[in-house]
């Protein structure tokens, strides 16, 4: 397999009201050499869209806030229609280090994978808040129901190749999409692997993302989706 070059990589950042940090994230991505950056603006009510364009990235704008799942699906559908070879999904809140995209691409090539998930649990140095650790452990249990044993099913830092992009048909609108992707990849026997990543937890990024209430809603939607599927 030939080397994945940065020009072939498209980085998608599902974002909702991330005007505070989106410019910094885009700037850091560009400094790492990634040119194809698309912020999937999930109906933000602040200046996310404006700041994204000012920072020189493109915007895929959802006129209504439909959830991170909908934004991810929009990104995947865009990638599929454009025939992209690889797509990276990253959080837009500055939690992930753009420099670690190379870790994902290296792992994808090394293991001939279809999907690489950046796991916060493989490397013990990640200082995740305890509540998030508990939440993620519980969420991982749900992926076990899909007969999948990933350590970080809720990580938003993922690399997908064309096979995954073209074949994964996801349905959930909210955070359940993380687990749904793992379930469906497992069902379709896609090669899903993990690689350790570092994350940056700030007060800002901790105020975003999943919490217990959202987790319960996610669990309900996952169970319902699974039942309807069968």
């Amino acid at each position, binding site marked *: 397999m030939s080397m994945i070059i940065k020009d072939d990589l498209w980085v998608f950042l599902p974002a909702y009201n991330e005007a505070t940090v989106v410019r910094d994230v885009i700037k850091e991505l560009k400094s790492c050499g990634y040119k194809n950056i*698309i912020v*999937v603006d999930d*109906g933000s009510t602040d200046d996310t869209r404006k700041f994204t364009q000012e920072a020189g990235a*493109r915007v*895929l*704008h*959802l*006129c*209504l806030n*439909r*959830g991170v799942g*909908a934004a991810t*699906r*929009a990104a995947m*559908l*865009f990638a599929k*229609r*454009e025939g992209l070879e690889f797509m990276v999904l990253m959080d837009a809140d500055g939690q992930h280090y753009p420099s670690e995209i190379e870790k994902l691409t290296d792992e994808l090539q090394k293991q001939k994978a279809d999907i690489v998930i950046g796991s916060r649990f493989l490397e013990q140095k990640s200082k995740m808040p305890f509540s998030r650790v508990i939440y993620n452990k519980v969420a991982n249990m749900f992926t076990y129901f899909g007969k999948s044993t990933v350590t970080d099913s809720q990580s938003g830092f993922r690399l997908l190749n064309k096979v995954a992009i073209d074949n994964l048909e996801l*349905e959930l*609108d909210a955070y359940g999409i993380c687990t749904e992707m793992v379930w469906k990849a497992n069902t379709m026997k896609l090669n899903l692997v993990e690689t350790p990543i570092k994350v940056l937890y700030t007060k800002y990024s901790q105020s975003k993302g999943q919490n217990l209430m959202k987790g319960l809603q996610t669990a309900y939607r996952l169970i319902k989706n699974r039942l309807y599927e069968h």
Partner: protein
Amino acid sequence: MNIRTFQIIIPILSVIFILWQLWRIYTFKTKWKSVWPGALFAVFISIIALFPDFTTNWLAKTLDFKSNVNAIIFVLIGFLFGAVIILYDLYKRQQKTITKLTIELSLFMADKDDFGS
């Protein structure tokens, strides 16, 4: 037999309702799947209106209620519960459609030239 006013009005209204729904199916404005709960309820209400004592006593006996009023209230609550489930399902399907349209619109509005395709 002493026929009461509601025993005339309710069945007539139910028949009108059912005929209207059949007309809507015939003109492709709706499908059986959407119509059957309302039609079933209309038939049920008509039967109760035409034979109020017989049906409520039968319901009370079948459900093992002492009072036929309680029995009919229980059944109507069941219908209400069913209606809530149906409406909730409809609401979720509409939400799915809205998401789908929002995604399609975003892709349509994306500047193709800018994305270099």
